[in-house]
């Protein structure tokens, strides 16, 4: 038996606009930019919908209908769902139809795509609960497998997932942790009883997600027969290939004209054609085999950059100060009981915000700069802090009134 576990992550942050200090206290529409503005959430959603959500969801739905053996797992953030309800409700309906077939599984995570686990455990618990409720409400299912924002994983997180009755958790299959071991097995996280650990096969995942259209890559162009040969070779290291990637890989990171959709359209039936090959969802993968070994990750590992740590989100003093200021005001915000204010505050916990303040590679104008909604990390931080000031102000007004 050989199985591909295909898992795609669907997310959009709710971006704050270029929010001036002169707006603080007079205008709280941080999340609304003019349609053509750089931080227009609506425009960006429509753009990605056109390039990625629509064609890729159609592709997945067709394959689900055509091949009962095709399975896929999706993690969908609450911030994406909030925006899809406004600007693409048809996508939610489409995902619901696919979930109903039993071939598509939804993975649990924080509602706001936050790093709350590292700042405030109560907030983390609450955001995970909110997400589970939203998934239940929209799709009628309850997530059994968990993934933390940015794949930020450590032993403590595994312990938490085990205590909270998840059957599986996803993480990066990083060589430094695995050593000679292969990511193509199911593992047992250190200190856990029932929880299974699924590790991303980052080489085969990144061949599609990052390298597919790179003409400087000596394997370009990547054809289906070539990729299938690699899959077959890799199965010698273990029978389970975990292909974990962003949903936007298809159409947004790799544009349609790179042939990415045709590649997937061919790969799925070709893989299923071979004897004993199948696709599994994340929870099926957990049930597939007993754990091969115990894996421990005392230090946090993520799926970003070559360091695979949290430094893209939390290394310079702007990022630390932004997160500190944000979580320091949590009690005050919650004590207002103002749902709108609390929700606005939670939108600020999304990890994309500190990511856009990263200066690690900023001078080289690399991937961080390319994907940023802001002109510079410094501007992102400036507007973030202005929003924080307005949230603080709103909370004070409400609390003063209540006294």
């Amino acid at each position, binding site marked *: 038996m050989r199985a591909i576990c295909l898992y795609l992550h669907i997310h959009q942050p709710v971006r704050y606009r270029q929010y001036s200090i*002169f707006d603080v206290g007079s205008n709280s529409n941080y999340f609304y930019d003019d349609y053509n503005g750089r931080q227009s959430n609506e425009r960006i959603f429509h753009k990605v919908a056109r390039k990625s959500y629509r064609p890729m969801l159609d592709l997945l739905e067709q394959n689900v209908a055509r091949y009962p053996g095709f399975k896929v797992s999706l993690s969908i953030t609450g911030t994406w769902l909030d925006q899809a309800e406004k600007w693409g409700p048809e996508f939610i309906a489409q995902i619901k139809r696919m979930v109903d077939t039993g071939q598509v599984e939804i993975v649990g995570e924080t509602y706001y795509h936050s790093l709350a686990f590292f700042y405030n455990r109560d907030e983390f618990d609450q955001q995970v609960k909110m997400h589970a409720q939203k998934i239940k409400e929209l799709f009628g299912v309850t997530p059994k497998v968990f993934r933390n924002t940015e794949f930020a994983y450590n032993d403590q997180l595994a312990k938490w997932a085990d205590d909270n009755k998840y059957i599986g958790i996803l993480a990066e299959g990083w060589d430094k942790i695995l050593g000679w071991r292969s990511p193509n097995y199911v593992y047992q996280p250190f200190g856990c009883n029932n929880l299974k650990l699924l590790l991303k096969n980052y080489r085969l995942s990144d061949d599609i997600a990052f390298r597919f259209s790179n003409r400087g890559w000596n394997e370009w162009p990547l054809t289906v027969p070539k990729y299938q040969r690699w899959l077959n070779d890799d199965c010698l290291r273990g029978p389970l290939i975990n292909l974990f990637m962003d949903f936007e890989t298809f159409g947004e990171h790799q544009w349609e004209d790179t042939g990415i959709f045709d590649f997937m359209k061919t790969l799925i039936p070709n893989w299923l054609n071979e004897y004993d090959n199948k696709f599994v969802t994340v929870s099926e993968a957990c049930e597939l085999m007993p754990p091969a070994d115990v894996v421990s990750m005392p230090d946090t590992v993520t799926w970003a950059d070559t360091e695979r740590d949290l430094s893209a989100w939390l290394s310079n*003093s702007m990022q630390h100060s932004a997160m500190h200021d944000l979580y320091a005001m949590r009690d005050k915000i919650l004590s207002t009981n103002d749902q709108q204010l609390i929700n606005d505050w939670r939108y600020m916990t999304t990890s994309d915000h500190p990511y856009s303040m990263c*200066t690690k590679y*900023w001078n080289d104008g690399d991937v961080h700069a390319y994907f940023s909604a802001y002109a510079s990390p410094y501007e992102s931080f*400036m507007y973030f802090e202005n929003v924080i000031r307005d949230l603080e102000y709103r909370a004070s007004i409400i609390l003063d009134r209540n006294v």
Partner: protein
Amino acid sequence: MMKILMLGWELPPHNSGGLGVACLNMARALSKQGVDIDFVVPYEAEHPEINFMTIHSATHLDPIYRYGGGAYESLRLLEKIIPSIDKNKLVSIRDVQKSYCEFINDYLMDYKPDVVHAHDWLTFEAGVLAKKNYGLPLVAHVHATEFDRAGMHAGNPLIHEIEYEGLMMADKIIAVSEATKRIIHDRYKIPLNKIDVIYNSLDDDYATSDYHFEEDSYGYLKKLKSKGYTVVSTVGRFTVQKGLSHFMHGAALAISKNPKLIFVFAGDGEERNELINMAADLGISKNVIFTGFIRGKRLRDIYAISDIFVMSSVSEPFGLTALEAAHHGDCLILTKQSGVSEVIWSAMKYDFWDKQKLADEILAIVDNPALRETLQNNVRHEYLKITWNQVAKKCLKVYNNVKHKRN
């Protein structure tokens, strides 16, 4: 060995601005790369510290006469400004340029360089002459265009014409930034592939020389800082090019949110009285200090005592002062219209007219120590990466590219 005839207008210590400093550093770095340089200046004076190249004087004038008072001032005005000036020696800048051309024409009869490298419109006529009369390849180096000097409006038509001819005739043009390259292309219709961008660098001596902040200078500012004030400074000529009236309005906006701000305008120029008036009209005179023209140590002291340096230019071919300020630990706020903003990433940026964004950026740096710290730390890694050695290497490439065009 490559032989270069460099046509310039000034060299330290007889310089009035950045042009002389840039020429000196460039020539020094080129000579280290094995280039043989003859440098022509339009005056006669000693350059005691320059021994790596030969300096030729095109005239017997004293250095102070070389601009003939500048392209814009009449001789009568000049008499008023410098009473000590010798009326009989007073010639217009066009006269100086004419003599300069005559000198070059004579000089080239005996000496044939591989390439002629002319700096700015002042020497372009001489460069064109070298090309026309002697078939020498010409590199035109643009440190600023007349459009820059005129705040992006039309400037002196005669200067435009000279600039245009030089750019048309040149075999290759070196611009000090992409912004300058754009102007050369957009305004003079020069094809983009004829223009190479070579950024200037901080003076080699600047980063290495001993400098100690003098405790006593600007004691008033020090006192204010100890009371929690933040010092925001700008340095330059007070001309329309520098965008200082927009800056003043931005300053007023920032002060309306945070009165503990002191703005230092270091420099002088025709807009001085207007700026003083404007500060008064905006009701912020108490927060604005005019230092007058300063240079050397007193200028470095201003950088040193400042927390934030603003380059507010409507158009700025490069903007070396920003690198100097960064060296002294200032956080930088640069207009997107400045050349330096193309190479420095660790800075806040804004459009010169966007006074609210400028105010936002000043206030953000004041209110967020984390922002200040990150800007300061990161810019340090950046400005040291740009060196004159790299500039020389790129110039050499340009020379090699054009030297076969000699006929």
